[in-house]
């Protein structure tokens, strides 16, 4: 009885700390993005509030809190009010299964690096729930977020918001397939859906090497899933003012903003977990044994926990840097091209990757050999895709308006 109470209490503390940490992470991601973007555009960026702009997120939050909370007259009131929550809650839920470190409070760092199947003595407080279907859960929860966006667009009763919402749902549903297929191949490599076990399987080699194609596909479709540049058609300012959140203001807008950025961190964390070895880095185990030898098993496991969290953070920030970098560099894709790419390139390539992985894993049982084979195959497939895509003519316009060549009168030849 007491044991259960203690466990529930620990769980509650974990949840509260996690949600607060993610909200802070979101706040500082906005600052990170704004400053980085500014530097890439030869500007300084927000640096007035606090040293180096450190308090800018707080200033933004205060400003948004004190904005007047307007509900337009003609909106569908219930759905309108519910939509921001529907957007932000799944974004927070994603984090339940992501291991962002490994701190075994049982006081034995070795459990982090041991085979989870034979060593159940792991109580990692840096992961909320290590469920057997972790990756499936991730895919399911990331997809639910589209409801918030669609309903926001629909309930706003405005054509801009409506078009933004429709675009968003079409885009998310299209890229969901490529994303899941890319993830599927990584899961096949690991042979498990548990996120902790996926990381354990990458102790010898990160999946980014055998799953190079999958990683690239994951990044592309992940960017589309986040509706970020260059796939941010949903908020194409020129055509749609700001898309599905055009009718939202004050904290309700902030919630949409928050869900987008939390999802951005989450997709980065998923990429790190599935492809870049998660919280693990070479040398962590050595650190654990050194600290255990010097100061006992508890200190050892805490040291490993903090170091692994740091490693995870560095990897996530690298991926976030990539997202911001892409936003600074590339223009927006045209809408039909986006659909064209999603259905005609990413999905077939992802399916090919799944087939390839399945065949190689079964035919070549040795992990190292099939990893190298898959790496080579990935490179070949990408090269072929590049050559083919640069030769394919663009799809013919289906517009009914025919472009007519003006007739140039010919000069009679003498």
């Amino acid at each position, binding site marked *: 009885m007491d044991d259960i109470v203690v466990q529930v209490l620990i769980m509650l503390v974990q949840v509260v700390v996690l949600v607060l940490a993610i909200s802070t992470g979101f706040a500082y991601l906005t600052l990170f993005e704004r400053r*980085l973007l*500014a*530097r*890439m*555009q*030869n*500007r*300084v960026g927000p*640096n007035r509030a606090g040293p180096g702009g450190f308090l800018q997120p707080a200033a933004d939050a205060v400003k948004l809190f004190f904005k007047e909370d307007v509900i337009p007259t003609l909106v569908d009131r219930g759905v309108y009010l519910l939509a921001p929550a529907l957007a932000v809650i799944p974004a927070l839920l994603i984090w339940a299964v992501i291991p962002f470190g490994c701190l075994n409070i049982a006081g034995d760092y070795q459990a982090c690096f041991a085979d989870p199947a034979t060593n159940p003595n792991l109580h990692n407080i840096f992961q909320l729930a290590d469920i057997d279907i972790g990756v499936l859960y991730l895919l399911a929860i990331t997809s639910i977020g589209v409801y918030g966006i669609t309903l926001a667009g629909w309930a706003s009763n405005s054509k801009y918001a409506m078009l933004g919402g429709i675009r968003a749902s079409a885009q998310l549903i299209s890229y969901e397939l490529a994303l899941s297929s890319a993830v599927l191949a990584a899961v096949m490599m690991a042979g498990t859906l548990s996120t902790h076990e996926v990381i354990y399987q990458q102790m010898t080699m990160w999946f980014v090497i055998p799953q190079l194609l999958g990683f690239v596909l994951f990044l592309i479709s992940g960017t589309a899933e986040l509706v970020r540049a260059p796939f941010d058609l949903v908020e194409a300012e020129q055509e749609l003012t700001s898309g599905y959140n055009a009718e939202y203001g004050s904290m309700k807008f902030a919630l949409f903003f928050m869900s987008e950025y939390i999802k951005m961190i989450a997709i980065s964390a998923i990429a790190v977990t599935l492809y870049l070895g998660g919280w693990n880095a070479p040398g962590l185990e050595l650190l654990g044994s050194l600290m255990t030898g010097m100061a006992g098993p508890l200190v050892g496991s805490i040291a490993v926990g903090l170091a692994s969290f740091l490693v995870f953070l560095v990897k996530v920030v690298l991926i976030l840097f990539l997202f911001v*970098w*892409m936003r*600074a*560099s*590339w223009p927006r894709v045209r809408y039909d091209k986006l659909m064209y790419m999603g259905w005609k390139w990413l999905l077939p390539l992802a399916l090919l990757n799944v087939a390839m992985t399945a065949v190689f894993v079964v035919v070549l049982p040795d992990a190292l050999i099939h990893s190298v084979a898959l790496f080579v195959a990935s490179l070949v497939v990408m090269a072929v895709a*590049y050559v083919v*895509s*640069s030769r394919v003519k663009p799809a013919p316009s289906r517009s009914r308006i025919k472009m007519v060549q003006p007739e140039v009168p010919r000069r009679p030849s003498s």
Partner: protein
Amino acid sequence: MFGELLKGLQTTLRYMFRPPVTVQYPDVKRPVRERFRGRHELKRFANGQERCIGCSLCSAACPADAILVVPAENNLEQPTSPGERYAATYEINMLRCIFCGYCEDACPTNAIVLEHQYELSFYDRQTSIYTKDMLLVPPDQGHGEIPPILTQLGDKRPSPPAQIDL
């Protein structure tokens, strides 16, 4: 196509390591040009007397009708300015002023000069009217001698040319 994408990434990355072109304004103030036309100043002669003789030519020249001059007779014992009259009231509405510098051109004694101060902002319209106290330079910052034509009080004197060469 991928080459172009990489080129874009490369460009932004290169720019990231360049110093920003931003001038951080309230901290760093770039010097203005010599002939920059900023806020007006009412000048003085070297002996501390005001240059303005209350002729209202600046007011007449002003295309925006921003200047108000109310002249008054000088007290002969303690003259405010050389000559017969001085400006009892001198006001410029900075919301109307277009900083064209015509007042400067019109002034026969070079009393009004557009200087380099450009931070002109107000919380209400009343404070946008700059009075004589605000425009006048301190008494110890005068320059130049009084031209003789302004000291020939009461004599029969020729009418002054439009611009006295001071």
